[in-house]
């Protein structure tokens, strides 16, 4: 249960970051930035995927992870692991783009990288854990409550 709560909390944090960057993209405003390169990163070709801002894809991914965090079972854990691992790998690719071709660092992207890496770890641990543990824990709480 703690794993899923932590996943949900991180997903909210990630969605907040991605939501802000999505707003910045569509409002055509410069993001608040202390690293000096946020605007450049946001305007690079890496900020969009087939015309869709990657930040918006991030919002969708985090919202899905948040929903899956509240679902029980192996299928939910498997789906969350796929999304989280994809997000972490894609974050790694974007980090490479910042350090290499773009030559600028965006603090919001770094924060997003940290969140997506943490989510990947949590979701993998959840998948590898025995799902019956969750059922037992739930049953134990029910017994204690009685």
């Amino acid at each position, binding site marked *: 249960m703690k794993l899923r709560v932590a996943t949900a909390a991180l997903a909210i944090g990630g969605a907040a970051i991605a939501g802000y960057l999505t707003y910045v993209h569509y409002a*055509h405003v410069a993001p608040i930035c202390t690293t000096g390169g946020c605007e450049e990163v946001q305007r690079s*070709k890496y900020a969009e*995927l087939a015309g869709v801002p990657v930040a918006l894809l991030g919002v969708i991914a985090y919202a899905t992870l948040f929903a899956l965090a509240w679902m029980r079972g192996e299928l939910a*854990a*498997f789906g969350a*692991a796929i999304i989280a*691992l*994809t997000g972490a790998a*894609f974050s790694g690719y974007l980090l490479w783009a910042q350090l290499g071709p773009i030559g*600028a660092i965006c603090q919001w992207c770094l924060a997003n990288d940290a969140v997506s890496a943490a989510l990947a770890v949590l979701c993998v641990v959840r998948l590898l854990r025995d799902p019956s543990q969750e059922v037992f824990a739930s049953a134990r709480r029910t017994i204690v409550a009685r």
Partner: protein
Amino acid sequence: MARNRRFLLLVAAVVVAALVVGSVVAIGAGRGDSTPGTTTRAKSPAAAASSPASAVLSGVPQDGLTLGKPTAPATLLEFVDPQCPYCARWSEATFPVVVRRFVKTGRLRLELRGLHFLGPDSETALRAVLAAAQQNKAWNMLDELYARQGAENSGWVTDAVLEEAATAAGVDVAKMRAAHDSPRVTAQILEADAAASTLGVPGTPSFALARPPATPQLLTIPSLEPADFAASLESDLDR
């Protein structure tokens, strides 16, 4: 048994994630480098606001007509005419690459030398750029004017265009107007004309490399395209 099954699910999740990200990266690589320049220069203020040249200027120190750290060992003099379409093209496509690779790394600073040989609109626009330089916004102003560039001497450099470009560049319009016809701006125009004449500048854009105490040397640039230009500049700096 169940443990093996969960491990297999993890392997499957890793494979799916790798396939998805691999495809995205492959598509991205297939698109090529869309840094500035591969598309037609936009004229609308909204599109101009997303200019890659403007974006790359963020965080780079400007002092009058210079761009970059004062401690840079070499200075690249850029001779431009605000009406010159090749200058606009260079600014859009190659300028960001030069700034990222040479200016931000402290190897080079850029210094603007504005010419006005194409006609009356050139001088009006150039004066606005030089007036913006007094607010350390010359490079932003020049880029914003390039984004609004019209047909040569068609009268496109109107007060409205100057005001729009100045606003987009973050220039104080009133101060810019006050400095537009000032003796200081006139002196800078004459200085640039004299430097161009001394170096034998053949047209715009042209570039000269200054490494004090040596006198500036006009560079022979094989191509204005980003990769070729950067390679040529690299070679010149290594000499």
